[in-house]
């Protein structure tokens, strides 16, 4: 009888504890939803500075993560576009691991700085991983809103290709929900930011956002062949595995960026999204494009992850590693991109390169 009484007492107190915890955690989630986490500018400042030094000469800005950094060579792109009759000056602002928080911050800085000739901004859509130990990923996850998130989960849920993976999608969703609702780091990432941010890795100030040793990462034939085999193996794995959560995250990420894109567009800039050819993008490019075009029909989106159409992108000789191109691959891709961009300008999918009217 005594045990039962104790059990009842402690059971009741535990319920009160859990109730109070959930109440405050949910409140924190709701508060932080409307606040933007502080940007970590450690890896970005120098590149941003380089851009601002020449901002009034730039027409086209690529803003993305290392996927962009290793894939788009603005010097090659500009000369190729010039040759094709679309003269342009581009800049590739693409520090490692750039995510939506910093993308948003940089975009806002660009609006404030009023660059005279900048017309088009092409954004990357880097993934937000679920890995609990990845600092960037964790911060960025708080940037998602469930009101945006849930419809996308529903959409993915209903996609025919994911019908057999619904249990996994549901599990991902439940874990994410529990984790985010428990409030881990919500307030900290919103209010506190280290002065210099991370990573404290070497920062390369690039002339045009791309550069460095052009011979670096040009591999021997043997290493290239090995890399090709690795890529082919990974492609096979990805073909049999559908990374549903990654798609959700990317779209969630974009959903959070959407107001910023709208704002940037309202100032007369044109925004487009590009998924550069990497194995990371390959795993979710197609379904993502499907959802993206449905949700944001006005914003052009291109992806180059069709390895049947562009087999060279899978060739180890053109890759630094399985997720990044080497300078040779970047030259090749920049030429293809230049051709397609020029065509888009000529066809009217993108406006021609002229200063925004509102400036």
């Amino acid at each position: 009888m005594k045990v039962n009484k104790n059990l009842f007492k402690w059971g009741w107190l535990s319920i009160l504890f859990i109730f109070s915890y959930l109440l405050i955690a949910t409140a924190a989630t709701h508060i932080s939803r409307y606040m933007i986490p502080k940007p970590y500018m450690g890896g970005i400042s120098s590149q941003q500075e380089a851009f601002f030094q020449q901002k009034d000469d730039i027409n086209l800005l690529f803003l993305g993560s290392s996927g962009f950094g290793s894939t788009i060579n603005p010097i090659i792109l500009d000369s190729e576009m010039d040759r094709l009759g679309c003269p342009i000056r581009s800049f590739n602002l693409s520090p490692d691991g750039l995510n939506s928080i910093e993308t948003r911050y940089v975009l806002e800085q660009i609006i404030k700085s009023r660059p005279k000739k900048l017309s088009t901004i092409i954004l990357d859509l880097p993934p937000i991983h679920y890995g609990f130990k990845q600092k960037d990923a964790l911060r960025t996850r708080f940037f998602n809103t469930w009101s945006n998130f849930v419809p996308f989960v529903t959409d993915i849920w209903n996609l025919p290709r994911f019908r057999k993976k619904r249990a996994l999608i549901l599990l991902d969703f439940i874990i994410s929900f529990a984790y985010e609702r428990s409030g881990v780091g919500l307030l900290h990432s919103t209010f506190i930011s280290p002065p210099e941010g991370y990573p404290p890795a070497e920062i390369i100030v690039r002339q045009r956002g791309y550069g460095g040793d052009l011979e670096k990462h040009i591999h021997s034939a043997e290493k290239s062949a090995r890399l090709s085999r690795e890529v082919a193996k990974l492609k096979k794995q990805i073909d049999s595995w559908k990374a549903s959560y990654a798609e959700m995250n990317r779209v969630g990420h974009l959903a959070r960026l959407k107001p910023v894109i709208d704002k940037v567009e309202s100032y007369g800039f044109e925004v487009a999204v590009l998924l550069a050819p990497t194995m990371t993008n390959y795993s979710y490019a197609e379904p993502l494009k499907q959802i993206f075009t449905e949700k944001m029909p006005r914003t052009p989106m291109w992806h180059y992850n069709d390895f049947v159409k562009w087999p060279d992108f899978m060739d180890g000789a053109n890759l630094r590693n399985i997720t990044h191109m080497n300078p040779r691959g970047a030259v090749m891709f920049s030429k293809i991109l230049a051709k397609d961009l020029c065509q888009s300008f000529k066809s009217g999918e993108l406006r021609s390169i002229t200063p925004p009217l509102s400036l």
Partner: protein
Amino acid sequence: MLFIEFRFIVFFIIVWLVFWSLRSNTLRKWLLLIGSYVFYASWDYRFLSLILIATATNHIAAIRIQDSSERTIRLRWLTSTIVINIGILFVFKYLNFFADSLVDLINVFGGTASPTLLNIILPVGISFYTFQSLSYPLDVYQRKMEPSRSWLDFSLFVAFFPQLVAGPIVRAKEFMPQLAILKTFAEIPVRACLTLFLIGFAKKAVVADGLAPFLDPIYENPAAYSSLDIFYGQLLYSIQVYCDFSGYSDMAIASAGLLGYKLPLNFNFPYFSASLADFWRRWHISLSSWLHDYLYLPLFFMGKNRFSKIMVYRNVIITMLLCGLWHGAAWGYIIFGLFHGLALVVAQEWQSFTKRGKITIPFSKAIGIATTFYFVCWTFVLFRTQDMNVAWHLTVGHFFSNIPSSETLPSAAPALFIFLAIVHTCFYRWDLPKWFANLKPWIFSLSAGAVAAFLVAMVPVGYRPFIYFQF
């Protein structure tokens, strides 16, 4: 598995629920032993063998010491177990350091030698459980306690998971009698333990980890900062290291308390110490007292004029040198120990001088607290960085402001320090944990839930290991 990780909370809740649902004390101890091994294996299962070796050698040695009446045999068993345990500690923690230092020494004297360093991983908590388990045969040898014949009890004493990887260093004579008693849930101060756990969590996860990103850049490149920034950086680092370690100790004591076991206090507001000797009585108390009992006092029996001033000072310096070395295999720690040893000697001489001359210094307590805190902050540089150039820069930069600074700490740093100092003082002046734990049960539950949620929301993303794990 860190105490602030979600998986530890899950692990602990499972162990806790099963523990209190068992009626047999033996079954409870088996549960805790298996749980402790699982806990340690989550770091690296290979090093469980070292814990088993420490358990076996000390247990056998203690029984043999007890069973023998001949002093030489007793001494032989004690020496054997000390050699085995310290030998293991030496190989895993100090071998590379001494080999490296020897090579440097040979090179300094014109010889040629190249280091052949072994790829040795430092097993987590090895310094803690080695010292803890060694106290057992030492106590038995000194007839301070009788050894337990139970393998289960001794194995659990060595491996008990709340204190396994970072202390407090528990004495067998304090802990093992507790194992004999079947606890009842009614005698457990649940609210006090939960309060202590929340305080420890706040110290570690919110304060210590929250300060780290501000302080890391200073210690990576002190040359870029002004002396004022370095000064605030050192003040804040002293808070970080205190919150990190005492936070762990609080959570360890609370976890053990929730299972019905009492662990000794490890920190007692050390930054309010009015002297350095007082500081070491309040900082990492379990280590200080271990060194006092098993090193400092026995040193008096080595040499003539046992209780002369010279002997006292010699023993203080040796003890502090080894205290520094206990923290890590690097010259920085040794110098840290040496500074503290010398400072203790100077402080003792000063005290004698003022006593002899009947000199009274106004506000002596306040001055004592300030100088002790300042000295400790200053020497903690050697805790934070093992790069002597960086340590030198921090030391010079601390005093001189002619270093042109290119980076600055956030302007909130002084305010942050003052805020944390005020909070700490409030806890020192008033027993806030006791007040919180004595709230009405339903108010306590609601408040604790709210505090826990707030703290979790303030946790910086990405866990940092406890600073003292490296020791």
